[in-house]
């Protein structure tokens, strides 16, 4: 018979507050003695080094052959206790962690019932571990190349970190240039560094780095494989420009007769040509031809770009190209979209010309923007005398997005400063709460207060143009309650800037699915642990960085980009990784050759030997889902770690069929 040790964790009062841990430990030691339990202990924090030593000591002194720890979720500490067992010479897979915190103490309210449930859960764990067999982790090699998806500041940072460490990176970006949202900004808070000045060098570095292969105007279409061994299929959209010949001289877009409103980079505030690079400092510097807007593609004639190109780089016959790359790790940094302000009709966006979004304002005050950085009204000549900045547009609102977009308060302060500095206008910030956490932010708030910006605490109810008196005529009227005085105010303004929410990319859900990840209800990608593992995901070898995980500012985005790179580099350096050895295998003698399992495997891990008329599972391809195990009519397939014996025994255990009713509690 096995010698089993049962350890019940208090987790401070997290468990002990709702479960009588002492009773559970004593109950296991007495009632489950017939099943081999030789010791039942409880301890304040089993995961502490003292708690682990307790297990190690018992393994050595009592000769335990199995260990059950009743504590938190296995997703948190399974590895901790397995490692402890290993140190004491016990095969780590002979340790079972059952959750009595997430699944018992935190979700139930009656101590009696919770304690009874904890006993059942322990009993199930005991039965399951009895049928566990010693296993050795599987080792797989890690391909040293990395795929970074998204060429904003997060992706650039991650790519540079890895490339600088000496490893190859494929940096995929769907727009013609890397740079992302940051490239659209004028200044960055709280230091007011010029965004282009700090971003452009990084873009150039990424564009020229020998270890970085830039794949702009491209998208990842398909991902196969697993940690260390992913295969990604990337669509390189036709640029209609031969990149090996193009020098980026700019003659083509100078000569192109077709003007197009630029909805992406200029946020609809400016125009570009049908052949274009989104902005002057674009990396790479060669342009793309925007096929749906190109006169040649629409009407069959024009080719002005081709005629004038000094290096004959234009090629209208190009087609999309599919390439596959082998990588060991993937970093997703796909960023965010902004909230569509039309959805809040009462703010008048789209109806009232001088109501603009924050991204539009970024372009308006950007020196390389449509007005060369002059803050002007829609007429293109008048400087505003009074400007309102509306916070929380589409954020902190259950009708739209419940979350706080994190950057708007600081962005509002930045805008206030810029408007003040460049126009001398009166500036109003309409806010619900000012949130200026992090370094230098509160100081910036103080500075803007000193500059004389008005702060009105109240969520703007509406913006309209229905004047009620002379002062209001021809103005935008912001109607808002100044909640600090409790009075409804009507404030006539010339320009209203809506701080629109950051939202997940419109296609975030499809992207998540393509990479086998999941999104929260909001659409942000879910990290492995919100505090302790914010850049890893549930899928080993795939990391997330920047706003794909949730709204954040540039410093936090850069931190995540670097962190994700560090995680990937760790894997690359280790050269191989140990995987859970949970794999299915066929017992040849029992296999009847019915081939039912063959079609079930989505990873093509099952092959059929025609000569022997039996199926065989390729352990390297098997992912361990166990579907074939459940389907085999002959019971010839077994799955390690989750064998039929284990699950059936656990059911008995959970239903307390194994309990010795005559045992006396100790």
């Amino acid at each position, binding site marked *: 018979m096995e010698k089993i040790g049962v350890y019940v964790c208090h987790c401070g009062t997290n468990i002990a507050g709702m479960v009588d841990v002492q009773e559970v430990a004593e109950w296991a030691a007495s009632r489950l003695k017939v099943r081999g339990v030789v010791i039942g202990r409880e301890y304040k924090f089993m995961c502490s080094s003292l708690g682990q030593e307790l297990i190690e000591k018992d393994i050595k002194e009592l000769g335990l052959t199995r260990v059950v720890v009743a504590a938190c979720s296995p*997703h948190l500490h399974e590895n901790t206790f397995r490692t402890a067992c290993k140190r004491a010479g016990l095969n780590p897979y002979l340790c079972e962690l059952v959750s009595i915190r997430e699944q018992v103490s935190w979700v139930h309210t009656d101590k*009696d019932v919770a304690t009874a449930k904890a006993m059942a859960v322990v009993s199930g764990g005991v039965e399951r571990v009895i049928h566990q067999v010693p296993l050795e982790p599987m080792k797989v090699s890690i391909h040293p190349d990395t795929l970074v998806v998204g060429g904003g500041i997060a992706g650039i940072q991650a790519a540079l970190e890895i490339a600088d460490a000496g490893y190859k990176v494929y940096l995929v970006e769907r727009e013609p240039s890397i740079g992302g949202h940051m490239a659209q900004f004028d200044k960055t808070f709280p230091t007011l560094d010029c965004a282009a000045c700090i971003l452009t060098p990084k873009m150039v570095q990424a564009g020229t780095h020998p270890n970085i292969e830039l794949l702009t105007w491209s998208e990842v279409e398909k991902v196969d494989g697993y940690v260390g061994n992913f295969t990604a299929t990337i669509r390189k959209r036709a640029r209609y420009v031969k990149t090996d010949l193009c020098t980026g001289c700019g003659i083509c877009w100078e000569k192109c007769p077709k003007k197009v409103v630029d909805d992406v980079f200029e946020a609809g505030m400016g125009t570009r040509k049908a052949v274009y690079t989104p902005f002057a400092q674009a990396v790479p510097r060669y342009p793309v031809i925007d096929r749906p807007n190109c006169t040649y593609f629409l009407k069959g004639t024009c080719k002005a770009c081709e005629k004038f190109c000094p290096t004959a780089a234009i090629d209208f016959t190009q087609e999309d190209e599919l390439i596959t790359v082998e990588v060991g790790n993937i970093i997703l940094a796909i960023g965010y979209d902004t909230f569509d302000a039309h959805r809040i009709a009462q703010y008048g966006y789209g109806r009232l010309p001088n109501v603009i979004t924050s991204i539009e304002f970024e372009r308006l005050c950007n020196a390389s923007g449509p007005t060369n950085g002059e803050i002007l009204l829609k007429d293109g000549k008048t400087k505003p005398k009074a400007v309102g900045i509306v916070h929380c547009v589409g954020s902190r609102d259950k009708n739209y997005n419940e979350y706080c977009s994190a950057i708007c308060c600081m962005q509002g302060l930045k805008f206030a400063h810029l408007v003040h500095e460049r126009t001398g206008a009166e500036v109003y910030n309409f806010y619900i709460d000012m949130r200026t956490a992090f370094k230098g932010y509160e100081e910036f708030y103080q500075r803007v207060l000193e500059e004389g910006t008005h702060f009105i605490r109240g969520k703007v109810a509406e913006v309209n143009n229905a004047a009620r008196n002379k002062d209001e005529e021809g103005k935008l009227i912001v109607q808002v309650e100044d909640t600090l005085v409790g009075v409804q105010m009507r404030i006539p303004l010339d320009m209203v800037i809506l701080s629109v929410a950051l939202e997940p990319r419109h296609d975030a859900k499809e992207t998540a699915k393509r990479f086998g990840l999941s999104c929260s209800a909001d659409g942000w990608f879910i990290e492995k642990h919100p505090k302790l593992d914010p850049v890893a995901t549930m899928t080993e070898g795939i990391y997330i960085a920047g706003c794909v995980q949730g709204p954040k500012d540039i410093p936090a985005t850069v931190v995540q980009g670097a962190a994700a790179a560090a995680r990937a580099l760790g894997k690359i350096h280790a050269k191989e990784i140990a995987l859970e050895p949970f794999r299915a295998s066929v017992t040849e003698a029992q296999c009847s050759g019915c081939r039912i399992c063959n079609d079930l495997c*989505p990873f093509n891990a099952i092959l059929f030997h025609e000569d022997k008329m039996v199926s065989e599972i390729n352990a390297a391809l098997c992912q361990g889902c166990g579907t074939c195990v*459940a389907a085999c009519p002959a019971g010839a397939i077994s799955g390690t770690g989750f064998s*039929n014996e284990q699950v*059936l025994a656990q059911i008995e255990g959970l239903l307390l069929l194994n309990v010795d009713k005559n045992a006396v509690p100790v």
Partner: protein
Amino acid sequence: MNNNDTFEPVIIGFTCNWCSYRAADLAGTSRTKYAPNVRLIRLMCSGRLDPTFVFKALANGADGVMITGCHPGECHYIEQNYKALRRFHLMRRTLQGLGVEPGRVKLVWASAAEGAKFAREVTSFVEEVRALGPLNWGAGENGPVTAYHSTRQEALA
């Protein structure tokens, strides 16, 4: 025992490692309360669910079985939850043939983000099974006996 007001059903719940087990974890970390009648078993995937597990649980004293997995299209193993779905329908038919209410087996999709949904589904399933009453399947002379203890006192008795 036959009084439905005091009858506390016991439910065995199967969860997949990637979505629904994490949904249960999330219900825990967000302290969402739900009925304590469910006891969970972790599988790597809902596709691993062998119908034998369900029959075994019901025969050994469970009053209901809840099967949970990733949403269709979100399976960690691409499409194996569809196989669980197919088996689920077969199982219900089989149970009906055996004279057991098919409502004792329930299939719930819960993503890792749906802790609240997981909790809600558990609680409502417990009420559904409570309404059906105790199963006592296989409780005859040779069958396994119901061995559920709803409180600590019963467990210790």
